[in-house]
């Protein structure tokens, strides 16, 4: 009798938590899902009732020269940033997971500062530095700023991948006569590759979507978020922005979901440093 009661209680509790969790997911996803919904709506007003189905805004999007130029810039910056910050992040992650070092916590904390500093402060500080150093604002300044933001993320991803890494595998390779270089390529690298791919995808997405730093550090060349920002002031262009936003969100979603799956697979149970 009392056992049945506790059982019912437990079931009730499980239900209320599950209901809350689903409601939370709706809160997380619903606002964003209005972008794709209205991007197919045959009206320049973003309002109910829906008028009719159209691809008009997607056509306007692909034939907009400014947009294509901004997209090209974003892809270029994102690709370079992804490769370089993953390189820096991997080196740093390898250092802190492989070696015992005094002051490790402090050093890692310093590298992680871009994660918590308000982006506007980082943006204007870099702008002031560029101004004093006479460095012209170009895509390079944007890329440099994005690297500062991406390296800590890449490092976290790589730490979570390398943390459970068995040191004896490398030592075995060295003992068996491989030199350090081949040990790296034949032992360390293959084991780290899911983390590296995840880091490349995530850092690319961060750079591709980043707005605040780019806002302060852009010269005449704009990136895609800057282009979107410039369009928000013109109500007639909003439907095209919706189409663009929907496309970006959906591509980002799949890139990131894949990266997260890759990164968390196998290291999930013992991982501690997730963002």
């Amino acid at each position: 009798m009392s056992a049945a009661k506790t059982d019912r209680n437990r079931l009730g509790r499980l239900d209320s938590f599950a209901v809350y969790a689903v409601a939370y997911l709706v809160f997380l996803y619903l606002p964003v899902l209005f972008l794709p919904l209205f991007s197919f709506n045959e009206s320049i007003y973003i309002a109910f009732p829906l008028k009719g189905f159209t691809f008009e805004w997607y056509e306007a999007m692909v034939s907009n020269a400014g947009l294509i130029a901004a997209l090209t810039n974003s892809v270029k910056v994102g690709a370079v940033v992804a490769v370089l910050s993953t390189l820096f992040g991997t080196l740093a992650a390898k250092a802190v997971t492989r070696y015992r070092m005094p002051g490790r916590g402090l050093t890692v904390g310093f590298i992680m500062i871009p994660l918590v500093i308000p982006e506007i402060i980082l943006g204007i500080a870099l702008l002031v530095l560029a101004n004093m150093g006479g460095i012209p604002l170009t895509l390079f300044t944007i890329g440099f700023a994005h690297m500062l933001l991406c390296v800590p993320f890449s490092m976290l991803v790589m730490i979570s991948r390398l943390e459970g890494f068995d040191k004896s595998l490398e030592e075995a390779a060295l003992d068996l006569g491989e030199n350090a270089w081949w040990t790296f390529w034949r032992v360390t690298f293959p084991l780290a590759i899911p983390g590296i791919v995840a880091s490349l995808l995530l850092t690319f997405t961060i750079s591709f979507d980043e707005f605040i730093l780019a806002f302060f550090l852009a010269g005449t060349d704009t990136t895609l978020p800057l282009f979107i920002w410039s369009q928000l002031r013109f109500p007639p262009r909003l439907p095209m922005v919706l189409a663009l936003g929907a496309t970006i969100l959906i591509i980002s979603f799949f890139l990131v979901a894949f990266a997260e799956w890759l990164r968390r697979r196998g290291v999930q149970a013992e991982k501690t440093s997730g963002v």
Partner: protein
Amino acid sequence: MAESTAPLTPPELGEFRRGWVERLRALFLRSEPTRGYSLLSPTLGLMLLGLAMPVAVLVVMSFWTQIYLDFDRTPSVANYVDFFGKAIYPKLLLKSIRISATVTLVTVLLAYPMAYFIAFRVKRSKLVWIILITVPFWTSYLLRVFAWKVVLGYNGVINSGLITLGVISEPLQFLLYNPTAVIITLAHAWAPFAILPIYVSLEKIDRSLLEAARDLGEGPFMTFVRVTLPLSLPGVIAASLLVFIPTVGDYVTPTLVGGTTGIMIGNIIQSMFGKAQNWPMGAAISVMSMMTITLLVCAFLWFTHSFRKRVA
């Protein structure tokens, strides 16, 4: 190698040097900290160049004065006098802190049950839940904020939806362009930042501790209050900081959904580097904001530390 005091002949000297290089190399390879730090040095160098140097330069500039398009580089505290002299700056900074503190509180309170659910209730598909929570965070911040403008706007989703349904006849004006809209938008945008650290700390809790508490006669609620909650505090603290610090300086959200009453300190800083064209003043406001945030964070950490000691 060099036992005699006689001067070394060139071949001997070469051998001596090689020996030295070898020994240094061996020392280098044996010492873990040296190897670690040399592997870390490129990243550390990048961060010094891109983080420490710009912030130092920003502090220097805050003591300059703007003269039209140029700077007067003689150091002066005029900007700081201005900061405290004009009530608007401290007032706006306090308001931003209030908004961010509310956002932090709301976000953490909403996130805790979610994290708890994933850590303790979900058995098989944890990974799916984690990915569902994480993914929105990696996607465009600008677009997520813009989505709220679409939802809350005068002709937006809620208003036009309610009118279509016949619930209201006039659009509700209080939805957009006020601090509440800013708080809702920020709480939405930063949710994953709060859920994940709390989840990680809950996941790390040794389940046998919970069983022990239950075996010793604690009810589920007291077990939560006396075991689970204190043990998950590090996650709650991390979550609070990860949400609070970046949101204080945000200006995208206030610009898009805040209207005139939802302005935050980030908007002022941005305008000093834009329309108002007074970089040194903008630098001074930034420095003051950074210092205030740092002080608050230290106070918060000190408070939670002593709280945890008292509980434990």
